[in-house]
Every structure is written in C-alpha cells, then in structure tokens.
C-alpha cells in the first residue's frame, strides 16, 4: 500500500470515529431532530395510526370486533403469521451467535449484533402480538408464575419464549451500555456472552421444535401432507435456514438503506457473511428436503401428491425450499452475493408459506369452504402494524446504538474480551 493510500485510510478512519461518536451521543444527536415527511414515513404514520385505532377496538370490543375467528378456527393470522413466522424468522439470533461464539467462526462477528437485535425485536413483537390474540395482558405472567401447566406444550413454549426473550435482551444490552457509556456493566455482560449463547441455543432448540409439536394434537385437522410425527424436527431444522435467510435479507436491506451507518469492518465482512450463510443455508435446506421426503415415505402419503393439495405442497417444497437451496449453492460457488440475496427472499417467503400452510391453509382442510377461516382486513392490518412497529424500532435503535458499527471506545484493540466475549488465544 502506498503512502497516499495509508494517509487516505487514516483520514477516513478518523472521520469514521468522529461520525461514530456523533452517532453514539444522544446530546449531539437528539432523539427526534426533525421528522421528514417522505412518502415512506407518511405510509408508516398511517399504518401506526390505523393500528392504534384497531388496538383500541380489539381490547375494548373483544376478538369478535376485529377478527374472523370462530370455534373451528380459534388460531388465526396472529398465531400463524405473527407468532409462528415471527419466531422462525427470529432464529437468526441463535444461529449467528452460535456460529460466532460456539463454532468459533469469528469472521461472522459483525453480523451478530444486527442478528441479535432482529431476534430480540422479533421475540418482543411475538409477545406483543400474542397479547392481541390472548387478551388481558396483565395476566400474561400467570402461566409462568401462578398456574404453570407443566403437561402442556404451550407452557413449554411460553416458558422458553419468556426466558429466551430475557436472554436476547441481556445479549442486546452491551450495545445500549456502550451508547450510554456504562463501561463496567457493559464489560460484565460481555463476559456472559458464551453462557448466554449456549442458553439461547438450548432454549431455541426446545421451543422452535415445540411450536411444531403443538400441531401433533390435530392429526385429523391438518392435511396429511403437512402432518407428520416429525413436525417438531421440521420446525427446528427449518428455523435454522429461516434464521440464516433472515440474516442475509436483513443485512441486504441494512446495506441498502443504512449503508451510511456501517463502519469499514461491517462493510468488508458483509459479503463473507452472505456467502458463508448461503452455503450453510443451502446444505441445511437440502437436509430438510431429505427429511421431508422421509416423512412423506414413512406415512405412505405419496398418493396425496397427485391431488390439488399435493400440487400446493410441491409448490412450497420445490419453489421455496429446493429452488432457494440451489440458488444459494450456486451463489456460494460463484461467490455471487446478489444471487444469495435473491435466494434469501425466497427462503424468507418459503418459511412464511410453510408456517401459514400448517396453521391456516392446510388446517381444517376438510371443512366446506364457507366454514374455512380467512382473516379479516383488521387482522391483516394489525399484523402489518406489528411488523411496522418492529421496523421503526430497528431503525431507531440502529440510528443511535452501535449495532452496524463498532463503538470507537470498544474497538478490537481496546480489550480482547470486549470483542468476542472471551479471551482470544
């Protein structure tokens, strides 16, 4: 590298540190400077306003006011989309942190904080959205502290989500402590990283699979092509590539819209994260395809493939698992980041389709059409509202806290414990 390049790099580094300090300082960068009324912000404001009105309608008028739920379909879009998809897509947190800290793939370190933030917001919104479905939010602690139903899968899911949300919150706090300048407590929490990561993986294994196991109780209601004794395994394995796809997808969005917030490390490592996760997602997807085939065979459900339900099943499996797996593989081989990002969109859509198929589309498939469930516009609007709240929170947090960049006071040289959560060798 020539002298000129070195000087240029030093200057840009200084600029970056200055910018980072500006970003991390609340006083120099007040929370709400000025809201720019861009079309996107206007749409966001409308969604939030409508969501607020519908929230009042739901909590004062009851489920019947805003939903099409009935005795045949007590679980609707809020469970199928907000909860099942939300939990699956938030799996990027445990996948990324275990890759970095447990498997020692430190080259993915820059992806950990955005993934943990996405997972934390994902789980927080799952609990938030669950309140709409269950109602009476003040009784939310009851199943954990007052009357635990230890023989119920829902209890296990509830307990795991409750514990994992706390784990994710603690894993997220170092960013907040860096922002607030609380170095001692930040270093203490960073020291817990390995413990929290292991706890996160254990809890995720438990509840991701248990969400699938919830449907084991309804063999007569769920279509045989989707029903299987392996549902818990399907849910857990699919959560892995859902998480990886979400990390790539979220990373590409951040790259496009929050490029200015990223430091050099994040920018230089992002392609490696995309390609590494593509390779892993591709292989896991192929394994998933294999066990789906085994499930089909062990229950002898081949004849269902030649019905209209079979076509829909194959559409899900080929279009949203086999195809993205192949695209991911080509992307990883050719080192083509754009291709990997296309596959990540298919991967995310595929997991949404799978969870909606199991919870809504193929559920109660034998009922006549007029008794089938279709969400009301208000249910859809509340789901859109919940997702929008998540996006707004993500933007707000990344605007102020060191998520997409390293805080200059805690950069790698500061102390080896800071960066990786444990002593480097």
């Amino acid at each position: 590298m020539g002298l000129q390049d070195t000087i240029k790099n030093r200057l840009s580094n200084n600029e970056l540190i200055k910018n980072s300090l500006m970003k991390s300082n609340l006083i120099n960068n007040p929370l709400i400077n000025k809201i720019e009324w861009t079309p996107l912000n206007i749409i966001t404001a409308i969604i939030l306003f409508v969501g607020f009105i519908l929230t009042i309608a739901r909590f004062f008028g009851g489920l019947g006011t805003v939903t099409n739920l009935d005795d045949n379909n007590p679980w609707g879009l809020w469970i199928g989309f907000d909860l099942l998809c939300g939990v699956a897509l938030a799996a990027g947190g445990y996948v990324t942190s275990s890759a970095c800290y447990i498997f020692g793939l430190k080259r993915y370190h820059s992806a950990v904080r955005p993934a943990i933030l996405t997972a934390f917001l994902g789980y927080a919104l799952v609990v938030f959205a669950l309140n709409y479905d269950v109602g009476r939010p003040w009784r939310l602690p009851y199943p954990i502290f007052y009357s635990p139903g230890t023989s119920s899968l829902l209890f296990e899911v509830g307990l795991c989500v409750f514990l994992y949300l706390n784990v994710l919150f603690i894993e997220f706090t170092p960013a907040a402590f860096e922002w607030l300048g609380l170095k001692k407590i930040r270093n203490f929490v960073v020291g817990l990283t390995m413990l929290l990561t292991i706890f996160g993986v254990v809890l995720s294994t438990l509840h991701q699979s248990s969400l699938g196991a919830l449907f084991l109780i309804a063999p007569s209601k769920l279509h045989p092509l989707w029903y299987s004794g392996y549902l818990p395994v399907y849910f857990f394995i699919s959560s892995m590539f859902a998480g990886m796809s979400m990390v790539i997808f979220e990373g590409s969005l951040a790259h496009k819209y929050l490029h200015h917030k990223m430091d050099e490390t994040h920018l230089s490592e992002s392609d490696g994260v995309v390609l590494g996760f593509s390779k892993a997602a591709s292989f896991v997807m192929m394994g998933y395809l294999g066990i789906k085939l085994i499930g089909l065979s062990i229950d002898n459900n081949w004849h269902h493939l030649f019905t209209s339900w079979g076509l829909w099943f194959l559409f899900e499996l080929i279009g949203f698992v086999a195809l993205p797996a192949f695209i991911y593989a080509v992307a990883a081989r050719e080192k083509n980041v754009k291709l990997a990002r296309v596959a990540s969109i298919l991967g995310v859509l595929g997991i949404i389709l799978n969870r909606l198929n199991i919870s809504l589309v193929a559920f109660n498939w034998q009922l006549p059409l007029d008794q089938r469930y279709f969400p009301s516009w208000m249910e859809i609007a509340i789901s859109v509202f919940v997702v929008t709240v998540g996006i707004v929170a993500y933007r707000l947090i990344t605007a102020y806290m060191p998520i997409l960049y390293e805080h200059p006071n805690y950069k790698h040289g500061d102390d080896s414990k800071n960066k990786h959560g444990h002593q480097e060798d």
Partner: protein
Amino acid sequence: MEQVFYTLQDFMVHTKGITYLIMGGLLAALPLFWLFLTGRDEKNKTF
C-alpha cells in the same frame, strides 16, 4: 392409486422398505451436494 394394506406388518414393511431406500439415496446425494457446494472453495491444507 392408493395401495391397500391388510395388516400393520404389511404397511410397515412397505413404507420402511421405501424409506430405507430413500435414506440410502440421501446418504449418497448429500456428500455429492456438499462437493458441488464447496467445489470452488480454496483448498486449505490441514496438515
């Protein structure tokens, strides 16, 4: 067309037989897919 089975034994033998064949196919296919996936990676010497 759906095959008719008269005993559970028939059903298990049939489905397990096909499942084992599929598993054998997967055991062969997945390493090949891994080779395709990593075919253009730089070879790191581990010795």
